[in-house]
């Protein structure tokens, strides 16, 4: 069966520090991968998605970046965190399809990031 791992679960970082959140998927190949951010009490905002190794699409311009060095690994990074980067970050995967997001996505447990 497929599983998705995301870590760390919580993170407190000072303003201006770097960030690296990692997500890995097991039990499937060539998944679509997603990074979302959820502000407190709000809906989900898509940050990045990837349909293959090295292929990253950015939905929101910001000081975050994403990389997919391996088929089932998705990394969210920042060189210098801002206070506004605080939030709940969720990684997700879905089956690959030429039809886009036509299959359900499965989410990791999330990382609660607080920038102080």
């Amino acid at each position, binding site marked *: 069966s497929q599983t998705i791992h995301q870590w760390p679960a919580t993170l407190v970082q000072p303003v201006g520090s770097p960030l690296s959140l990692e997500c890995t998927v097991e039990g499937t190949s060539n998944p679509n991968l997603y990074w979302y951010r959820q502000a407190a009490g709000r809906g989900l905002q898509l940050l990045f*998605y990837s349909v293959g190794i090295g292929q990253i699409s950015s939905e929101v311009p910001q000081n975050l970046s994403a990389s997919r060095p391996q088929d089932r690994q998705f990394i969210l990074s920042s060189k210098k965190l801002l206070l506004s980067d605080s939030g*709940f970050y969720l990684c997700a995967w879905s089956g690959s399809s*030429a*039809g*886009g*997001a*036509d299959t359900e996505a*499965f*989410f990791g*447990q999330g990382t609660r990031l607080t920038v102080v």
Partner: protein
Amino acid sequence: AQKVTQAQTEISVVEKEDVTLDCVYETRDTTYYLFWYKQPPSGELVFLIRRNSFDEQNEISGRYSWNFQKSTSSFNFTITASQVVDSAVYFCALSVWSNYQLIWGAGTKLIIKP
């Protein structure tokens, strides 16, 4: 452009009551997909159901049921005989063919009181 509206920000009911969560969507595409997700206090999003635009059959899964009506662009979710464990934020989402984005509603916070 696509849009999902969940007009109910928060609903509070007493356990064992039935409750319906509304979802209204907008799209000009003829091929699209609708989803419901549950987000319990732990934060992880749990997939509940997916419907494609060509399948208007209603779905029942235990105490959960979904009513998809293209005529009103709605995909409503009903919980029968609600339980405290149903307390969560519920999201409705929409995607269209060849687009990798999910368009999310703002979510409805459901509180089930014992």
